[in-house]
């Protein structure tokens, strides 16, 4: 995009700005502007992110319950943290979350990158079809979870019938969200359906950023397509792939809406991911102190993991 001619703009600006304001505004120093621009954001984040975080930390050392505002609040030291870390139900939830996280990342990365690579071949109409693939990620995860529960019904839902059509097994012989073995896969499938386009977009950006001349050089050296892929395409797209993994990882660690509406964490607690357990503790049992400790534990976990991962990502980017 061409930069506008400063002289023309200056003229327009001079004529457009009312005199007193112009003089005052012109007077603002760089420093003042910097603070003016940053302060609102920092204030908002302090009020809605940091202050509540500190409050949560404080709550985690108490036995406060939000539905008993009049009850006495006592300091319980690290009791809540001990409870959280020794609760087998919490560990089961973390396991369910880890299983979900692992498989969704693997599937979405493989599918997303493959799609990006194929789209990069620039076949006819690729723009249109790319937009079509993007649609699932624009839906509300809660609405998606609710609707897929309908699709997964063995009697009246579409999913079993399609599987039956292709494999011949009778539709009511298996149930995706009712069976202990299949429910974890049910949520993985829905998440992959929704978010593969997101990974695809990032990988596509990565593929597009690889400059021509590297491939030209490889052609001159008579490297095969296969070789080119493994030694040029994949390594140069790797930072982007890793970035997609980071974003999807953070998001899926926090997963709540879709799974809650699809399975309610069931059957039993098979798909009860960490956020669902947290919600039950905080907003159904109203054990505010305990769930604050749980929230801090979750935050520290994801923060720590993200930190390590980002360091690795930076190393990959800078090599």
């Amino acid at each position: 995009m061409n930069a506008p001619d400063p002289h023309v703009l200056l003229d327009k600006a001079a004529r457009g700005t009312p005199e007193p304001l112009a003089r005052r505004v012109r007077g603002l120093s760089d420093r003042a502007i910097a603070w003016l621009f940053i302060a609102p954001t920092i204030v908002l984040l302090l009020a809605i992110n940091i202050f509540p975080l500190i409050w949560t930390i404080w709550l985690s050392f108490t036995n406060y319950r939000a539905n008993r505002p009049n009850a006495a609040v006592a300091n319980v030291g690290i009791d809540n943290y001990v409870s959280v870390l020794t609760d087998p139900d919490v560990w089961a939830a973390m396991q369910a979350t880890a299983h979900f996280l692992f498989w969704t990342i693997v599937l979405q990365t493989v599918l997303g990158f493959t799609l990006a690579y194929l789209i990069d071949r620039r076949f006819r109409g690729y723009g249109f079809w790319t937009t079509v693939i993007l649609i699932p990620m624009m839906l509300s995860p809660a609405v998606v979870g609710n609707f897929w529960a309908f699709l997964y019904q063995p009697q009246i839902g579409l999913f079993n019938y399609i599987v039956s059509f292709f494999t011949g097994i009778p539709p009511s012989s298996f149930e995706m969200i009712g069976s202990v073995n299949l429910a974890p896969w049910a949520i993985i499938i829905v998440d992959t359906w929704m978010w593969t386009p997101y990974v695809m977009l990032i990988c596509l950006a990565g593929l597009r950023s690889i400059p021509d001349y590297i491939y030209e050089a490889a052609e001159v050296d008579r490297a095969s397509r296969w070789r080119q892929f493994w030694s040029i395409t994949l390594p140069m797209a790797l930072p982007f792939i890793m970035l997609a993994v980071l974003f999807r990882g953070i998001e899926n660690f926090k997963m709540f809406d879709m799974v809650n509406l699809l399975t309610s964490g069931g059957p039993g607690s098979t798909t009860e991911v960490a956020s669902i357990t947290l919600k039950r503790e905080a907003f159904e049992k109203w054990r505010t102190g305990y769930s604050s400790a749980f929230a801090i534990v979750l935050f520290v976990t994801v923060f720590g993991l993200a930190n390590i991962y980002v360091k690795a990502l930076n190393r990959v980017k800078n090599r």
Partner: protein
Amino acid sequence: MTAISQAHSVVAPSPLSQRIAGAIVIVYALITMVPLAWIFLTGFKSGPDSIAYPPKVLFTPSAEGYCNLFTTRSRQTPEYVAQMPPTSGVCDSLARATNMVVVGSSNYLPRFVNSLIIAFGSTALSVVLGVTAAYAFSRFRVPAKDDLLFFILSTRMMPPIAVAIPIYLMYRDVGLSDTRLGMILLYTAVNVSLAVWLLKGFIDEIPREYEEAALVDGYTRLQAFFKVVLPQATTGIVATAIFCLIFAWNEYAFAVLLTSGEAQTAPPFIPIIIGEGGQDWPAVAAGSTVFLLPILVFTVLLRKHLLRGITFGALRK
């Protein structure tokens, strides 16, 4: 500024490999569309058709789904229905056919409007705050800049439920519970970190020479910002706006915990639309379809910016 490269192979992919690639992608796209097509179709089925087993692919369309979505009805005795004045429209006649009477409009439209106000409001605010903060981080020496930036990003790492615990208490005490303003502030706070991060990437890409030239010519910093930098950052702003909008539009956890009769948005409302028996699937499908439309239109119109947005946000840290 490194432009997005064009075809990156001297020898373009062979027509055959292009066609194969195309075929695979098209098949994937069609498969992905099946659930969406099913939702769309279900919005036009009658109640019994939607829960028929085996599922019906061919059916006679009915306006029941959309009618049920926008109205509330109550069941009356056949005698009562018989003595009512003549019907006044499609939805009325549909209801009378099963001895129901339309008694008013449903809560869907108010929820949809709430979604509009809260989502667009918070997006606008996020973009304004984001672009200004990003400019400052990009151009000025801010103390502890890298730490501040990582801190801003890390605010996105808490699960929404965890964030909701103190916010719930805070809003209750301050009176922001179940208010549109409260939700706008909350969504903005969540989105602004992404906005700052993305927009800083874009603004970093805009060569400082343009601003320097403007400053030399007598512009103030502010004028340079508005007249030189902002127009060039349009792509980034649009891409950021799309991401912020998608998040705020589709958000569920905060909405379900912090809103009630006044400020509730559509996502908590749609899954609890029930008819006389179980969930009113045609109405739920209709509600989901209507809810998807604004985002769909917005994103399709601005899809080029979306792709560029991902690129830049991704390339920089």
